[in-house]
């Protein structure tokens, strides 16, 4: 193999599995260390710069980071091979700790632009995507106007996520931080014509209107019993606004996604005593996140699988229940799923009300089809995946409106990219050319066996977030059910983080091939061997490198003609290789990766002004001496420190 080029930003970025998996590339280990050090405000700001809604995401994120977490690959199995040993760090709920325990951070936020730059941007929908665009552009001097049919900002975060998961104050606080940047919210102004909006002279329009239309179920009885059958997302919105305050005693929720989980749990709190979720697919194939299924079942809600709804039963329009065909799940050789009837008699379940949460769609009745915005056959706009630009150059899409329902963190990532596109476009630059990320690699060495990060590996298992007593939680739909980690629990959980951003950097010129690193490595990640092609090398390392999605770090040729090969897969980043290296050929260096946001830094013409020194990393032993090299400025225009 050719020697690894570690100067390519993606190489070390990929080693930080959580950050790589996060659509917004939040520097996860960085803020987890700050949380462990009790520096909650700084941890919050690291998040805020990257994902805009730390308090909201810390409660509701889909957490693509957690399945990616290295901890889930390196922990021991329990002796019987089952149990909960291989568990990722509770990244999401640690983020909430930063939000819960921070001090007033308003002085750390950017100020509204002192001078407007004369450009006007309209955002359609006040959800996470639009708010991100606004946050990135308003401090630069853009005049940003957000339109929403609802009076308050937040979009689906406010209307579809139940308050027992996400209290209203958190939404108010974090949408407020964005609006306070001088962003104008025109609440209650539903945009009914894109043409008209364009006609108002905006320089660019960002569409972040979500996927607001719930799928319906067109089966017998649907029309007759309509009064007791509700579309999940509409019903949740109606609950959120306080229009709906009760539900029948027996409720069936149809669907297996996270919306279905929110529906059933809300029903339990509004008077539903016998609430069940009925899903077409098998349990494993359900779209809902595992933890959301777990939370529902914890509240006494059974999930019944492999049942396809056939008809709603009613007596003279009064809903009595629903019948279901029993199926089993089969996969063909391409892995495509099909539901095959088992031939057993249909099942009937009695109920008083039904919530239908079987998917949602985009809906753009307000976009004129003759104005140049092209749609594909599924009714989705044609949008560039990198620039978020539509077929009309100054109209951009993001969030669920762009590629169909995803989640909040994707909406934020889209928002950042759209803001970069808009900023470049309005500065006369090619928006297909994207700004490089900001990276820095800083040695963590303080002395012999002393590092600027805590390199001891915690043996603790993943901690559970304390919950409110179930009876109390079910009494009031506005009472938050999760209590969150307290600082002690947060510290313990934070210590489980392996600091994957502290990279093992190898200098082949210094290596004397003494084998010390290879001998000490607890994970057998390091080998010294003759070079070969990748498939060959992977088989003959100290331990086989089986996960091809994880790279091999291959050095230049060493004195004996061999190369050093490190399998990045299960490295603990414990730094023992560097501690045992007599020549400093191994060093532990912190890799900081930050997406470049809108502003001078994203433009070819504009050089970024240097930022103040970032928060120094926590150290349990002593303050780091002034040995650190200054890192290049991260996000320009955002006063993060």
């Amino acid at each position, binding site marked *: 193999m050719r020697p690894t080029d570690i100067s390519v930003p993606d190489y070390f970025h990929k080693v930080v599995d959580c950050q790589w998996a996060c659509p917004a590339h939040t520097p996860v280990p960085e803020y987890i260390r700050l949380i462990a050090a009790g520096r909650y405000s700084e941890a919050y700001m690291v998040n805020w710069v990257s994902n805009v809604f730390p308090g909201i995401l810390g409660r509701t994120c889909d957490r693509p980071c957690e399945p990616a977490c290295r901890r889930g*690959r390196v*922990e021991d199995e329990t002796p019987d091979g089952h149990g909960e040993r291989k568990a990722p760090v509770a990244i999401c709920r640690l983020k909430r700790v930063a939000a819960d325990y921070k001090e007033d951070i308003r002085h750390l936020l950017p100020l509204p632009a002192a001078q407007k730059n004369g450009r006007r941007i309209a955002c359609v929908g006040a959800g996470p995507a639009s708010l991100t665009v606004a946050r990135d552009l308003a401090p630069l001097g853009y005049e940003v106007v957000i339109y929403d049919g609802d009076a308050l900002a937040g979009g689906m975060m406010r209307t579809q996520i139940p308050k027992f998961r996400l209290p209203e104050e958190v939404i108010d606080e974090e949408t407020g931080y964005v609006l306070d940047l001088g962003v104008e919210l025109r609440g209650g102004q539903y945009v009914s014509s894109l043409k008209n909006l364009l006609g108002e002279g905006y320089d660019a329009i960002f569409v972040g209107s979500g996927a607001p239309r719930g799928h319906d179920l067109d089966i017998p009885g649907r029309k007759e019993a309509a009064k007791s059958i509700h579309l999940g997302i509409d019903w949740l919105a109606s609950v959120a606004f306080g229009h709906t305050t009760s539900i029948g005693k027996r409720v069936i929720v149809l669907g297996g996604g996270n919306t279905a989980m929110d529906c059933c749990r809300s029903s339990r709190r509004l008077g539903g005593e016998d609430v069940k979720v009925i899903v077409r697919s098998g349990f494993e194939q359900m779209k809902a996140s595992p933890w959301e299924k777990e939370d529902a079942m914890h509240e006494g809600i059974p999930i019944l699988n492999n049942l396809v709804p056939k008809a709603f039963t009613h007596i003279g329009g009064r809903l009595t229940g629903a019948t279901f065909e029993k199926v089993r799940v089969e996969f063909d050789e391409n892995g495509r799923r099909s539901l095959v009837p088992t031939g057993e008699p249909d099942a009937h379940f009695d109920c008083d009300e039904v919530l239908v949460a079987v998917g949602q769609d985009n809906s753009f009745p307000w976009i004129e089809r003759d104005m140049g915005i092209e749609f594909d056959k599924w009714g989705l706009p044609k949008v560039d995946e990198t620039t978020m630009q539509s077929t009309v150059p100054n109209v951009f899409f993001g969030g669920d409106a762009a590629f169909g329902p995803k989640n909040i963190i994707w909406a934020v990532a889209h928002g950042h990219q759209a803001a970069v596109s808009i900023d470049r476009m309005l500065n006369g630059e090619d928006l297909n050319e994207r700004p490089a990320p900001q990276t820095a690699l800083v040695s963590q060495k303080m002395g012999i066996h002393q590092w600027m990060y805590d390199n001891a590996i915690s043996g603790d298992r993943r901690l559970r977030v304390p919950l409110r007593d179930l009876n109390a939680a079910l009494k009031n739909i506005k009472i938050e059910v999760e209590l969150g980690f307290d600082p002690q629990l947060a510290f313990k959980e934070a210590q489980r983080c392996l600091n994957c951003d502290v990279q093992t950097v190898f200098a082949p010129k210094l290596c004397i091939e003494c084998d010390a690193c*290879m001998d000490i490595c607890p994970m057998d990640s390091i080998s010294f061997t003759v070079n070969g092609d990748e498939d060959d090398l992977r088989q003959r390392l100290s*331990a086989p490198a089986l996960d091809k999605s994880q790279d091999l770090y291959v050095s230049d040729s060493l004195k*004996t003609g061999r190369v050093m090969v490190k399998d990045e897969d299960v490295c603990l980043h414990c730094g023992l290789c560097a501690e045992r290296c007599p020549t400093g050929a191994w060093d532990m260096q912190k890799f900081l990766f930050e997406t470049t946001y809108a502003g001078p830094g994203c433009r070819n013409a504009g050089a970024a002004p240097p930022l103040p020194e970032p928060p120094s990393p926590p150290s349990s032993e002593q303050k780091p001496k002034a040995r650190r090299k200054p890192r290049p400025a991260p996000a320009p225009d955002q006063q993060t420190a």
Partner: protein
Amino acid sequence: MTYLAKPRLHHPTLAKNRVGYTRRDYEGKISTLCAGCGHDSISAAIIQACWELDIEPHRVAKLSGIGCSSKTPDYFLGNSHGFNTVHGRMPSVLTGANLANRELIYLGVSGDGDSASIGLGQFAHVLRRGVNMTYIVENNGVYGLTKGQFSATADKGSKSKRGLANNDTPIDLASLALVMGATYIGRSFSGDKAQLVPLIRGAMAHPGAAVIDVVSPCIAFNNHSGSTKSYDYVREHNEAVNRLDFFPQREEITTEYGEGEVIDVRQHDGSILRLRKLHAEYDPGDRVRAMAYVQEHAARGEVVTGLLYVDNEACDLHQQINTVDQALNALSAAELCPGSAVLEKINASLR
């Protein structure tokens, strides 16, 4: 300066051997030797060899003297018996232990100071008695603990870190072992585990006195350009006479061999030492020629490594003095003191 314990987490494919242990189960405490010390590599080779041999850790007794090398038994086989003896006196303590309990596997770990200076006499005698053991000398040519004076194995003319040349004739422990009658003699290099691990496996299975002289660079005091025990020097001057593969009795030999003559040496217990010759004229069954060969090459500044000598008819101290099969420490009072009638009989026979 704190030494972080090696995390217990391990690679997902880490395998268990026939007695149910992973390689990690043969580790000891974290090493406090200098970073890059050759001794740590030897510890890793011992761990690997014991795991591959399916040895139950509680069946091993590891004994050492004083010095950097003699600290190392703390860093491997954490669940074995250990005895850190007086300086240079490990061989007599090992002999005593072996006499009392012949059922353990004895591993003596020593250094060039402990074995070639203060303990030279002990080293010679334990070999001529044929005590069944594996005696590993971690040989770096300097007194590391006292800041790098020449040891008795430092080559004549080699230079200290400060540039001073050594005028004394070196003691070559492999040659001495050949003279003193050891029945399994190897030499190796800490930086070559592919060679060292099979040598240790063969030695531990050898039913007699086995010695391995392992050149082990001292990073702090003897890894400079004037040294003959540095990583670079040994790599440049290493003359391996053969490559050893060790096959325990039960293992079928499936390895394919390329060029070069292969000889099999079957030991008492049925295990096989398979040697692939790298020097065509070298015969590891000929003690006298081995001595000459090692000395000739040493005179040219070369370090001959590999299995230098093995006696497949080796016997040990217990056979020579005809002890009972049972471990002496397991004999009961009745067997040890058979009564006055038996004493009378013995006395009568001597009259």
